């Protein structure tokens, strides 16, 4: 029986994961140099631009050992961001081994540690690799010691590699064969195939990427998705080579794909188990979770007639991305749209960008927020409700207690930036837990933070405050009581629901002042004066005024000015489409976006 090795790569962004993966593809002859597109595995435009992996990928390679023996490698590439911890866990589940790749010049980052611990928890064999040893700044000794401290290996266990020059790649390939355990090839047991990713294809439906954990799947088998309880036929199965390569059988230990005209987007979810309809497995592979959204935001079409297009785009995205949830929402300001739940901020940005790029739909998104739990007391009648939309927050008079989600954040930063990091955390209502000095002048700082403070540009601030050196990992801990209020924004007395936010009482004044100032900047002068107010309940805490337009007329309009002026009007018409009427006031869509990007230093 052919030897198989299933492994993944754990690495931080920029630590050279993709370059090294490319090198493996080259050395195993999976891909010729001519076919080489940089970073083959990240095939979404967005992934390549951001240099991160958003979805899991897999690729099968045939490695011919110096002894002449042939071994099948299945490399499963995993997402590299804290938002996608669940996807990572499923990808790890599909492997027996993991390459821990650390940039010899930069050292271990927070995200790497968290993924590494997950891999150790799942009993994966870890192969430590120091990458980028060719760089002048490479600190092989020091970073090597970090790895030793982290996983308790010997210095001699660490491979030294350069994905760029190819140094050490031969040794790495041999090490994979030697150290990563072969999968159990229990081909006669009932079928259990783990879906570690699924993508959607317009013509073929959902394509599930699977690792067969036990049993045998044949082409044409009647299959059952255990968690979603849906039945399909395995119309096509195959291996994931550079392109999909159909085959007749996938056996225990194999990694491949299953196509079965799975139309419904929710039927083939990451983490689900595929088995046979007849004589199937009794129990699914443990660990399946319905992903729980942590961040919520309203998504509205810029033009109301795009509502149905937006709905179908979200449906399609959800096929590919089971962690995206959404439900219809109506806003007085923005009309019909959706309230969507995301795993985190990056996930939210990705969805927004994909709506724009892949579906070409102009959208307006509202300020992201977390889910609150609110106890209300209405004339003695107490109720506890979940609030995931600021405008649903009951009026201040009725609110007894508000609970908000807290996270534990681990931030690894060079010691030089302890000050800025702590200042940022303090500003965001953080509770300091501890700091651990690590090898290489680096510190692991732990804080408890309200999640609401982190979803709003925390990561950007962290990065800019540490010149990009800090890395962040976090996990949800619990809901805690907080002195939180709903801050409304009113234009000429009309509340703009899409601009409401939930904020800590101590920050409400400052936040309200900034939003008012920003709106003043963004809302064009209109025929009448516009009063901008920020209010908690009926109490106005900040205000600004946009003066009425007093002069707006071109001085010269003769024979040579007509075309230019008409084109200006055409442009204005485009802009008008992007305006939203709230009461008597017209708001450009940028206003809804800009409140998102409001800077602390404004």
């Amino acid at each position, binding site marked *: 029986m052919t030897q198989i090795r299933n492994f993944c790569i754990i690495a931080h962004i920029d630590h050279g994961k993709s370059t090294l993966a490319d090198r493996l593809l080259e050395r195993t002859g999976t891909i010729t140099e001519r076919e080489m597109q940089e970073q083959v595995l990240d095939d979404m435009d967005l992934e390549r631009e951001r240099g991160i992996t958003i979805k899991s990928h897999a690729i099968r390679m045939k490695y011919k050992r110096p002894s002449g023996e042939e071994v099948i490698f299945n490399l499963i590439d995993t997402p590299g961001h804290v938002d996608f911890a669940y996807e990572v866990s499923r990808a790890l589940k599909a492997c027996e081994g993991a390459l821990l790749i650390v940039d010899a010049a930069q050292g271990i980052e927070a995200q790497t540690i968290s993924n590494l611990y997950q891999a150790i928890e799942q009993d994966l064999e870890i192969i430590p690799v120091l990458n980028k040893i060719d760089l002048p700044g490479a600190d092989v000794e020091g970073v090597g010691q970090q790895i030793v401290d982290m996983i308790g290996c010997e210095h001699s266990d660490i491979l030294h590699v350069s994905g760029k020059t190819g140094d050490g790649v031969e040794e790495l390939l041999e090490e994979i064969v030697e150290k990563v355990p072969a999968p159990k090839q229990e081909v006669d047991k009932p079928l259990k195939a783990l879906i570690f990713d699924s993508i959607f294809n317009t013509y073929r439906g959902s394509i599930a990427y699977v690792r067969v954990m036990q049993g045998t799947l044949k082409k044409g088998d009647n299959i059952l998705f255990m968690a979603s309880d849906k039945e399909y036929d395995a119309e096509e199965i195959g291996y994931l080579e550079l392109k999909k390569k159909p085959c007749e059988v996938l056996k225990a230990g194999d990694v491949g794909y299953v196509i079965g005209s799975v139309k419904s987007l929710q039927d083939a979810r990451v983490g689900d188990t595929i088995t046979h309809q007849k004589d199937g497995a009794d129990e699914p592979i443990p660990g399946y979770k319905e992903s729980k959204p942590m961040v919520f935001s309203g998504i509205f079409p810029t033009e109301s007639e795009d509502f149905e297009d937006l709905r179908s785009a979200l449906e399609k995205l959800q096929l590919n991305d089971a962690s995206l949830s959404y439900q219809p929402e109506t806003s007085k300001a923005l009309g019909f749209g959706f309230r969507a739940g995301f795993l985190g901020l990056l996930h939210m940005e990705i969805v927004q960008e994909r709506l724009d790029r892949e579906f070409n739909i102009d959208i307006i998104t509202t300020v992201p927020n977390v889910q609150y739990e609110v106890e209300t007391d209405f004339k003695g009648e107490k109720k506890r409700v979940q609030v995931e939309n600021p405008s649903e927050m009951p009026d201040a008079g009725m609110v007894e207690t508000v609970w908000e989600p807290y996270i534990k954040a681990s931030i690894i930063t060079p010691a030089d930036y302890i000050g800025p990091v702590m200042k940022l955390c303090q500003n965001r209502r953080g509770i300091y837990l501890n700091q651990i000095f690590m090898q290489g002048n680096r510190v692991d700082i732990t804080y408890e933070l309200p999640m609401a403070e982190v979803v709003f540009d925390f990561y950007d601030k962290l990065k800019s405050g540490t010149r990009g050196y800090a890395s962040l990992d976090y996990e949800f801990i619990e809901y805690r009581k907080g002195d939180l209020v709903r801050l409304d924004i009113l234009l000429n007395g009309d509340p703009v629901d899409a601009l409401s936010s939930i904020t800590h009482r101590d920050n409400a004044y400052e936040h309200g002042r900034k939003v008012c100032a920003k709106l003043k900047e963004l809302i064009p002068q209109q025929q009448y004066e516009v009063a901008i107010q920020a209010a908690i309940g009926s109490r106005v805490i900040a205000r600004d005024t946009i003066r009425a337009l007093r002069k707006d*007329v071109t*001085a010269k309009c003769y*024979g040579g000015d007509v075309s230019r*002026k008409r084109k200006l009007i055409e442009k204005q018409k485009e802009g008008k489409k992007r305006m939203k009427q709230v009461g008597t006031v017209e708001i450009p869509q940028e206003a809804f976006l800009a409140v998102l990007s409001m800077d602390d230093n404004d």
Partner: protein
Amino acid sequence: MAGIYIHIPFCKQACSYCDFYFLTRGELKQPFVDALIEEIRHYGNHPISDETIDTIYIGGGTPSLLTPKQLKSIFTALETVFTVKPVEVTLEMNPDDVTEEFLLKIQDLGVDRASMGVQSFDEKLLQFMHRAHDPIEAVDALKLLQKANFPSYTADLIYGNPGQTMEMLGKDIDRLLTFDPPHISAYSLTIEPKTRLGKQVELGRIDPVDDDVVADQFDFLYQKLSSAGVEQYEVSNFAKPGKEAVHNSNYWRHKNYLGLGPSAHSLYWPDADNAQRWKNRSNLKSYLEQDWDGVREDEESLSLSEMAEERLMLGLRTKWGVSKKQLAERYGYTINNKQEEWLKKQQEQGQFTSVDDAIILSKTGLRIADYLIFELISRRL
């Protein structure tokens, strides 16, 4: 009937606010005049030459930098190629060029309306604008104009300049009114990006004047001129009754016009759905090559509904407004219910003086005309 506009692309120096096409070197004046005469002949084959030319406007640049002889050759060419029965022949000139003799000679050529680029009588402001003349030259030129006894003439003013107070504007207006001019064009300063002024504003060296200040000056100007019997008939144009500019007013009425010379624009609208606009390249060098089809650019063919919007955009700037009957008959454009409703509301609030047969903006409406015109047009989207 059609008008002819001729662009003379030469100036002594660049005014800081001006983004018209001109050269400050004059050695190509005669080659330009020769080419212009060829261009005039070229349009003898264009259907627009079938129309009687009733207005001629020679602008620039600085037409007064041409010699009377050069101007004569241009007029001769025009009369050879076109049927010219002028009701108005305007020539733009700068105070520093004007002599009694020059004025007499152009009158002989048939120029019956002089347009004098005064802009201001304030020495500092004139320097700021980088004008070639000083206040004394401005006064002298106006005196000569008065004496020359043109059937009509006009003087340009610019207001809303950085550093210009209401008092300074008042002085400029009073000074001009002492000459009792039949027509005044008063423009609020527009900061164009590709000018010296535009660059300075971009660099933060000069702050543009606040709109509220300009709005006050607009009102002040209107008050002063109106009480002197010089009535506003367009956003920036004021005239004694019957002295309104014919050629310029025709732009706002969609009458055909042929633009000659570099950067000149043309409109030819022979039948309902076939309006054409084009312009000449803003490049004297290519103009001198006399490849007349190659000189034309930005050719546009406009639909009736586009023309209707243009008509509103242009006509609402004037005291005559736009007649609904004409909109319907000439442009097939009927004001819809949403627009009617909005117009009524705006009229109640004083922005329009009439919204029934003709749509006419009020004085306060004129001040925000661009805004109101767009609001009216966009209520159809």
